[in-house]
């Protein structure tokens, strides 16, 4: 009965509907955007690979600074791709290799005593592969006598523990910056360049550390290259979306909603805020978290509006799911666009705090920093609000309900404590 009514309503609105692009055009542009964003991620990762090569050849402060700058630049396009992660199974299954977080960095290299020596969750908590050529835990042996792409890939999620992140951006980040030992105070990781200097080596095993950094960066480039191919013409990810019909549209909205809600608002922001814990900061070694969150939010808007500004400054636009929503419900489209803009304003405040005032994300979530906590909380609330608006857009398209990826205690965020 209800189905008939919905169809009739569709017919009555026929004039308006024809103004919107076809569903197929929207899905194809969504795939084009993905291909372009992953291509930009690959290009900037190759620049990082080159900078890392120079650093290993000539370990100077200047070359370390250049490698760090290249890492930060590589994050800009990649974070915007995260709106593709949830919903596209091919991306979600792959994503852990390049951006898994948080990590127990004691798996990889030396750590400060404050890190602790054991974890309920992770028997590899202090395995330190750079210092140990053989790692054995719970009957599992890993031969790391030579550190290669294969070896570090085999260490990923060792023991089935997600915190064993051996590859990807955050492993590279840890190697370039080292642990941030400033807690919730100012300052990032301060790894000395001599950690990579085989002649004046600090903290031992500099050759193995350099080998690890090279392997991790090479593997990152390989993995991104693979993902670009999945979105190219004939690629698996592209085919799944453009042949998906209504499910393709659901994929777009699931990706937006799940990243907004469970992942960004929940795991990456709320958890750190309620623990007041700098370890819960997404880019905790480099103190680059403000940009990481900002570009996630921008990526969500890109996907909705079908727009992306490339790293070379050129702009890509095309038919979007926003057009489809607007054809069915101009109010739902307008509200969601406003919601996405509002979130970017809140994220900009977090960026400004770091870039203009030098107060970084880890300082904002510190215990007792009421003003800082409020800035972060405002962004969280805005993300939760935009998730509700995404739900309404889903309803407007008549493809509900979708299960968004969520997180504990996010459904009704209030001020902290009482």
């Amino acid at each position: 009965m209800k189905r008939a009514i919905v169809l009739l309503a569709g017919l009555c609105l026929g004039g308006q509907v024809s103004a919107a692009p076809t569903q197929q055009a929207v899905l194809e542009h969504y795939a084009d955007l993905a291909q372009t964003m992953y291509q930009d991620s690959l290009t900037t990762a190759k620049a990082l690979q080159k900078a890392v090569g120079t650093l290993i050849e000539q370990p100077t402060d200047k070359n370390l600074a250049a490698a760090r700058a290249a890492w930060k630049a590589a994050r800009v396009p990649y974070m915007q791709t995260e709106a593709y992660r949830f919903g596209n199974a091919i991306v979600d299954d792959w994503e852990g290799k390049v951006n898994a977080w948080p990590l127990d960095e004691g798996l990889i290299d030396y750590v400060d005593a404050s890190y602790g020596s054991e974890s309920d969750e992770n028997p590899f908590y202090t395995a330190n592969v750079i210092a140990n050529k053989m790692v054995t835990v719970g009957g599992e042996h890993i031969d790391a006598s030579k550190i290669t792409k294969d070896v570090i890939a085999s260490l990923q999620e060792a023991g089935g523990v997600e915190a064993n992140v051996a590859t990807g951006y955050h492993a590279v980040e840890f190697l370039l910056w080292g642990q941030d030992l400033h807690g919730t105070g100012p300052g990032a990781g301060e790894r000395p360049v001599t950690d990579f200097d085989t002649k004046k080596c600090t903290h031992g095993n500099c050759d193995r550390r350099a080998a690890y950094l090279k392997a991790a960066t090479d593997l990152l480039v390989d993995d991104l290259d693979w993902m670009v191919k999945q979105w190219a013409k004939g690629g698996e990810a592209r085919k799944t979306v453009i042949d998906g019909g209504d499910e393709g549209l659901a994929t777009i909205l699931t990706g937006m909603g799940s990243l907004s809600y469970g992942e960004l608002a929940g795991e990456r922001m709320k958890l750190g805020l309620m623990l007041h814990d700098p370890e819960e900061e997404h880019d905790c070694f480099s103190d680059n978290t403000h940009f990481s969150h900002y570009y996630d939010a921008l990526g969500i808007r890109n996907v909705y509006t079908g727009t992306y500004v490339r790293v070379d400054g050129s702009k890509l636009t095309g038919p979007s799911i926003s057009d489809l929503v607007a054809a069915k419900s101009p109010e739902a489209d307008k509200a969601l666009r406003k919601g996405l803009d509002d979130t970017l304003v809140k994220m900009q405040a977090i960026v400004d705090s770091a870039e203009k005032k030098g107060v970084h994300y880890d300082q904002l979530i510190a215990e007792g920093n009421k003003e800082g906590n409020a800035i972060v909380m405002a962004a969280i609330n805005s993300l939760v609000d935009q998730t509700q608006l995404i739900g309404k857009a889903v309803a407007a398209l008549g493809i509900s309900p979708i299960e968004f990826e969520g997180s504990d205690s996010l459904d009704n965020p209030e001020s902290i404590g009482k």
Partner: protein
Amino acid sequence: MTIRDTLSILLLGLAFLSPAGALAASPWPAASRAIVDDHILPRYRHLDEAAMDLDRHSRKFCAAPDESGLADIRAAFQRMMDAWMEIQHVRFGPVELYLRYNRFQLWPDKHNTAERQLGKALAEQDAAQLADDKFPYASVALQGLGAYERLLYDSDTDVAGFRAGEEGGGYPCLLLEAIAHNLAQMSGDIYREWTTGAPSYRDIVLEAEHGNSYFESSDEFSARMLNNLYTALQFIVDQKLMLPLGATPAEANPRRAESWRSRRSLRNILLNLESAEALYLTAYSSPLKADQRNAALDRDIRKAFTRALEAARAVEPPLYDALQSEARRRPVEGLLTAASELKRLLGGPLPTALGLPLGFNSLDGD
């Protein structure tokens, strides 16, 4: 990767299903009332009593720490955990305000935060941080049942550690008292906010029948609790069982079990299952079987609850030891199978048959 794999896009097309016939009266106003009055409120009352009891015993123990007092607060802690496990599945209402759910319990603690923060707190011994107006704003990893358990059951726990000097307790005791007091405060607030105030949460749920600013109808609250019911099974299967189990005894990681220090992981699961069954019978069984076509599904779900409970009772506790023994793991695997089947029924066939959307997934995340 396992948690990511559970991400599901549910395109159930529920909007087009009409469960009880378009003209029959909605069962959800009555079900909503039953959920609040017969399921939620008695359990929060019990939680409040257990928390006040823990508060009292903690103060008594810390006035003069001795062996019998330690046994006494361990017993009070066990009773408190029982009460929490009976209501752990409810993630709606006052418990989600002010981060209370996480302040009660932070688990799983994926990044080992409790270990680091508790170690730091015990080293710094900052008593000022424990004041009533400060402690609720401290890290959630210090505030809840997990921190209390560590203080009572860590391998190096002994009575001497709680003594300061000639009389009274030292810093660990002050922390115990602060946690217990904070839990009692929150439990009391949760019960009060459910029952009093204008409007109380009970009012909000009951008035949903005619729509209000929280809910468009009673369907929405019933759907919300259905989500909590499903999440309870997801929590049991994906986190309480699969995280510690591993593929073989050598790969088992018993420290990833909930409450492994106090060796009550299995009891937690049993109490969770009993509460989940009670919620199902209170709210969803009757509306389901009211439609003749769904009578078989109701029978299947009730049978699946019985099987899961039997499977939980068939495991010889503690789970910590059972996981590491080839022979004793089999019943654990049986429990996992039974609970997974129940989870499947509650997550797919049940919401479809009832015409209630499952909504946001509250467990997944990176």
